[in-house]
């Protein structure tokens, strides 16, 4: 017998416009503090379930602690061995993806409707009762070490890692990659994983989202059976934040790799946080400067007009705390100086002169018009819904987004560009011959 509304839930039903369609997202808070978001979509018999855990490098005392905790969830529980879990995942053909960012951990289950029940049971089993066997931990750690060593052969990875180390400093949670540093992985013990899990994997620290071919009754049943009786408080997030390294002028670091034919150029500086009031101006600025594919200013100047590169882009990482902004270009080694000066020149022009009304109009049309494309799969929706709560965007974010973008003026772009684009005080990492 299933009691239907045996637990107290507060329901906020939100109907959100997304283009012509409405997204009927429902949000609940359970008694144990877990947040739940739900959207029904029954055009294909599949279901996604994501859980965002407020656990990341912001909370760790050693590099890779958050990352390894997430990885180890599928390596043994009170009832199932690692091998049994692997067999179930493959037999049911479900996906359990773990993504650890500098701000949070996101675990996503994807399953066909046909295997829903077994998949949900497995998911909550690994989430609620992992046992982190010592031997499995050691094996995974050794694989991780090897994998990072292999990633170090990728010039983009090397450049990015050096860049964040230089920008934030290695004591800052954003200063080293989530997967840690190979030479420091041996600091990590099973005990660290167990503690991290105990402190942070608690229902009041979690935001769940369910999207797909799932009725409200089925959802209630799932919550009733799997989540309601889970108690326990998480440790509050109190990240230790050292001051960022100071820089009086631009800093250039070269990593020599003789076998390469191209120079990978990564040039950047401090960015903004997700909650920054200038977030939307910054997004538009980034789009026009280098985020907008082949049409951006940087792509025009470096690729389209001169044929100096295949890959040119800028991006930024708007975390809970201010993140980074950077540009990456790969060019034949002998063109390094030319490309560097083109980048700096574009930054300078943007910072000093801003953009035209026409350019801003096109950028707004892109960001608002393509917004629904960012949510054109159930998976993308499922992984985004928890962020509405996590970054305090609100359930009406989908509806309000076009207004946020459209209200930005050329003056605001100019303002944010002149303040943020540090064309004479940047960090430049080059990996090349």
């Amino acid at each position, binding site marked *: 017998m299933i009691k239907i509304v045996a637990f107290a839930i507060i329901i906020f039903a939100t109907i959100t416009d*997304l*283009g*012509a*369609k409405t997204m009927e997202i429902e949000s609940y808070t359970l008694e144990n503090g877990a947040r739940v978001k739900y959207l029904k979509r029954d*055009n*294909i*018999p*599949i279901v996604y379930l994501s859980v965002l855990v407020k656990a990341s490098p912001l909370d760790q005392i050693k590099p890779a602690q958050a990352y390894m905790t997430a990885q180890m969830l599928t390596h043994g529980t009170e009832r199932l061995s690692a*091998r049994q879990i*692997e*067999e179930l*995942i*493959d*037999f*049911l*053909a479900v996906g359990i993806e773990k993504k650890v960012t500098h701000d949070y951990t996101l675990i996503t289950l*994807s*399953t*066909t409707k*046909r*295997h829903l029940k077994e998949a949900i049971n497995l998911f909550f089993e690994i989430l609620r009762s992992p046992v982190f066997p010592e031997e499995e931990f050691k*094996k995974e750690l*050794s*694989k991780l070490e*090897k994998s990072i*060593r*292999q990633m*170090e*052969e*990728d010039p983009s990875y090397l450049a990015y890692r050096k860049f964040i180390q230089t920008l934030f400093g290695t004591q800052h949670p954003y200063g080293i990659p989530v997967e840690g540093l190979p030479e420091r992985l041996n600091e990590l013990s099973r005990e660290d994983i167990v503690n991290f899990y105990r402190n942070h994997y608690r229902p009041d620290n979690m935001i769940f989202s369910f999207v797909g071919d799932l009725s409200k009754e089925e959802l209630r049943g799932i919550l009733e059976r799997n989540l309601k009786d889970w108690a326990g408080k998480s440790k509050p997030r109190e990240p230790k934040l050292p001051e960022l390294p100071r820089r009086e002028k631009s800093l250039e670091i070269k990593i020599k790799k003789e*076998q*390469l*034919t*191209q120079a990978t150029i990564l040039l950047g500086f401090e960015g903004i946080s997700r909650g920054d009031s200038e977030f939307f101006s910054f997004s538009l600025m980034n789009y026009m400067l280098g985020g*907008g*594919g*082949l*049409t951006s200013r940087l792509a*025009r100047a470096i*690729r*389209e*007009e*001169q*044929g100096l*590169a*295949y*890959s040119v882009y800028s991006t930024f990482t708007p975390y809970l705390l201010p993140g980074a902004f950077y540009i990456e270009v790969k060019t*034949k080694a002998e063109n390094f100086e030319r490309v560097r000066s083109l980048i700096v020149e574009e930054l300078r022009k943007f910072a000093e002169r801003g953009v035209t009304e026409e350019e801003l109009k*096109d950028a707004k*049309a*892109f960001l608002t*018009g*393509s*917004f*629904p*494309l960012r*949510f*054109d*799969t159930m*998976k993308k929706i499922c992984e985004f819904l928890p962020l509405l709560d996590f970054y305090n965007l609100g359930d009406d974010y989908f509806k309000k987004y076009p207004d946020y973008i459209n209200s930005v003026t050329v003056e605001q772009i100019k303002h944010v560009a002149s303040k943020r684009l540090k064309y004479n005080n940047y960090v430049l990492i080059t990996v090349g011959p």
Partner: protein
Amino acid sequence: MIKVLLLTLLFPAMVAASIVEHRLDNGLKVITYTDRASPVSTFQVWYRVGGIDEPEGKSGISHLLEHLMFRGSKNYPGNVFSKIIQANGGVDNAFTTKDYTVYFQRLSPEKLEISINLESDRMANLLLSKEDFELEKKIVLEERRQRYEDDPENLIFEEVIGTAFKNHPYRRPVIGWTEEIERITLEDVKEHYRRFYCPENAFIIVAGDIDERKVLDKVRDRFGKVPSCNSLPRRNNSLEPKQQGERRVILKRQTHMPVLVLAYKVPAFPDRDSLAIELLSNILGGGKSSRLYRRLAVDRDLVVDVATSNSSLSREGFLFFVYAYVKDVSKVEEVERIIREEIDRIKVEAPNERELEKAKNQVEASFLFSQDSVFGHSLYLGRFEILGSWRLIDNYRNTILSLNPSDIQSSAKRYLTDDNLTVGILLPR
């Protein structure tokens, strides 16, 4: 009884009712597919031209032409294609494979007319200026440096494919060899465009939250004016001679881990064997409970990862790959021996029913998940259409369901032989 029920539940047939096919007078086929789950649509133009169709000495010409398709056509001169799409809130791109070239936009259904105008103009009236040609060639050479010259993990696959095929055009990389890209002329590209970019050699997929009639009217209006092909392009007739003996290539480059690649020549769909090998690919390397991962990564801890890949939807027979990231140089031989042992084991001892059911579940799930976006689903349909018709999906599905353990075993015996094998090893320099 339970078995029958299982089969009907497994792998539900696609909702074919929402897919409609049309043909214009000039021979262009248009496939519309209505799905109203999200307020988005996709417009895709597929050309039946890829690496397989390239003239000798001109490897990479299809991909170079793909780049040049963004450099302006008669009514939209200059570098404006993506700018127009993006200013209308759309995303656009293109890709070339060994079998076909696809141009696509993802955008709001109200904006489909823009795609139709732009795509129809570049199907008929591409400008192809000398200046753009030289620029794109430079860009493609940078792309090649980035993807191959500076990425040994890709380079070893290029070498294995080039070694496995002696004569078949699949031996050439889609991006082309540097020496040949450099020598392609503008005239070559113009000729390639004239031969392959015409209505009967293409088809369109429009999908999403669309008004089918309205879209078709517009497509007819614009694409209907594109002249028919002069003659249908000749297809590849370079056959691969029977392989005599195992082949081997060793590449020494900067890498932390050695990479071992085993590639067996296998047939393509609709050959039944190709789907048996598809299932075998899952049994051997689909996930952490697969035979190879279990033995090499879990029991013996010799590799960081081992996986398999089979592209059964090739236009012609291609390769079944097993590849492993080996933890230590001294273990490469042992890893190769174990992989070959596992392949031989299938030949003497058929996979069990549960393994087969697991492999079928995996194929079913990837089929369903590929439908999660209209864009992804359209790509899925297009891959079958390239082989003749999107309706072949039913054949694919029924064949997969009908395969039994002894089919898997006999396909392995037939194709996974030393005389079909090429081994590639990437070693640290």
